[in-house]
């Protein structure tokens, strides 16, 4: 097994004045190229902190992140992030938002015309080419997240990091976008790491589900393989025994063994 992305003994301790909180403890994980891995856990378990460490937006207190055997500790387009609340720049059009990353990443390798074509290609991938000249305030939440995905994809990341990408969307839009992401993963073969708190979403999309224990000092409690063949169809899976068994396992982990304690 070749480790494409490797999380090596990551600890994260926040210090505020004299008080220290250990958020993450001894996180070890290896992800293969082309794999779709979800990290699931209750809110406050530090899963977003973990994603920020991988993205380089926060640094680990000890341990590190290795991408293709090289340590990464600052943010970069090789680990593009799709943020929870889309984070499109409101003063730029859809096209310009995607172009911002493209211009930077391909400044030397692509000509102006090629970059333009590449932006449009990525907008086409998420079916947003029609809105190229609209501003984020003029499109719906689901469309914004599509553009967010296009922006990340357009940077040709080695690992695509999704930070609860569908969390802010209504159920129907969410299902639609999940299907889109699945189709993109099938087509492009990206390595994807997704943070989620939705069990169905995790089982439907992932090859492996990483379940985290509750914080403080959250660890990886269990890693579940999802042996479902791709392409997966939402409707067929609803009655699939393997799907239901996986779903059951995750639910048991979250609600029996690591029940979220409000007071903790």
């Amino acid at each position, binding site marked *: 097994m070749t480790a494409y992305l490797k999380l090596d003994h990551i600890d994260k301790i926040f210090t505020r004045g004299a008080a220290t909180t250990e958020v993450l403890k001894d996180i070890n994980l290896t992800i293969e190229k082309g794999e779709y891995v979800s990290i699931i856990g209750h809110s406050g378990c530090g899963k977003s902190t973990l994603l920020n460490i991988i993205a380089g937006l926060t640094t680990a207190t000890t341990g590190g992140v290795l991408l293709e055997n090289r340590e990464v500790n600052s*943010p*970069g387009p090789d680990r593009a*992030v799709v943020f929870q609340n889309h*984070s499109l*720049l*409101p003063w730029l059009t859809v096209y310009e938002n995607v172009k911002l990353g493209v211009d930077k990443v391909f400044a030397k390798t692509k000509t102006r015309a090629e970059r333009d074509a590449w932006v449009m290609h990525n907008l086409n991938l998420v079916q947003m080419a029609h809105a190229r000249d609209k*501003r*984020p*305030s003029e499109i719906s939440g689901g469309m914004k997240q599509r553009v967010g995905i296009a922006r990340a994809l357009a940077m040709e990341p080695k690992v695509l990091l999704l930070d609860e990408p569908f969390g802010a969307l209504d159920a129907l839009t969410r299902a639609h976008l999940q299907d889109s992401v699945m189709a993109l993963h099938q087509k492009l073969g990206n390595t994807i790491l997704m943070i989620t708190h939705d069990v169905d979403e995790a089982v439907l999309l992932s090859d492996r589900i990483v379940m985290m224990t509750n914080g403080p000092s959250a660890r990886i409690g269990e890693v579940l393989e999802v042996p479902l063949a791709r392409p997966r169809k939402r409707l067929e899976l609803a009655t699939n025994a393997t799907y239901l068994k996986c779903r059951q396992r995750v639910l048991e982990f979250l609600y029996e063994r690591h029940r979220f304690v409000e007071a903790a």
Partner: protein
Amino acid sequence: MNMPATKIEVETAAPASIAAPVVAMTPKRPPRAETYARIARETAVRVIPPLVVIALLLLVWELVCRRAGSALPPPSKVFKDTKELIFDPFFDHGGIDKGLFWHLSASLQRVALGYSLSAIAGIALGVLVGQSVWAMRGLDPLFQVLRTIPPLAWLPLSLAAFRDGQPSAIFVIFITSIWPIIINTAVGIRNIPQDYRNVAAVVQLNPLEFFAKIMIPAAAPYIFTGLRIGIGLSWLAIIAAEMLIGGVGIGFFIWDAWNSSHISEIILALFYVGIVGFVLDRVIAGLGKIVTRGTAQG
């Protein structure tokens, strides 16, 4: 229990609706006269109330000041005295004996120069203070004290430094209008959402690109608030400064009129000062609206 089953009417109704003939709906356009009448009504609603108030004020003023021995002239006398100035703002008899256009334009040129300098320096300092905690700790107390110094208090010092009226007046405008620009810019920079900073970090924008592509657009609404307060203060400061430094300019025109007891001219000049100040404010506000278009969170 033995109720007769009611026949549901839907079945018969549905085909009827399908078969309903398509009626071409021609959009009804209101007659042109009606549109004009509507526009006229809307304009009247906005324009008439202020006109009524102005007319009433003029009437009261006229009644109060027309008595013999009143200190201030009534509006009718103001108009009679200043007719020449109103109808010929472009005359130039050399020296400071010029039409009001030239006085106003001299004042506006000083404001343009002083205000441009303060906008550039103010935004630069605001970005510094907003971005760096240490710069804020070091500079903020200084700013808070300096900004309370009234414009005219700077004038003697700047006259001493520059030994000339023109640069001193420009300096006074600069130093008066810079504080709200600095402070508002700094607040705008500090309020840039972390999300935008994260995006910039992932895309790896360099500091210059970050400044141009993220900072300035994100802080633009705040910056324009500062610029708008700044232009108002500049206009306040220039009138006062010109009274003291002399030469061509609307401020000195007022002072000169006072010295020659031309009270009507003072009143006319005040009217112009008010209008110009209002226009300056609107120009900056309008500019802000254009520049910050689409910055609204969505």
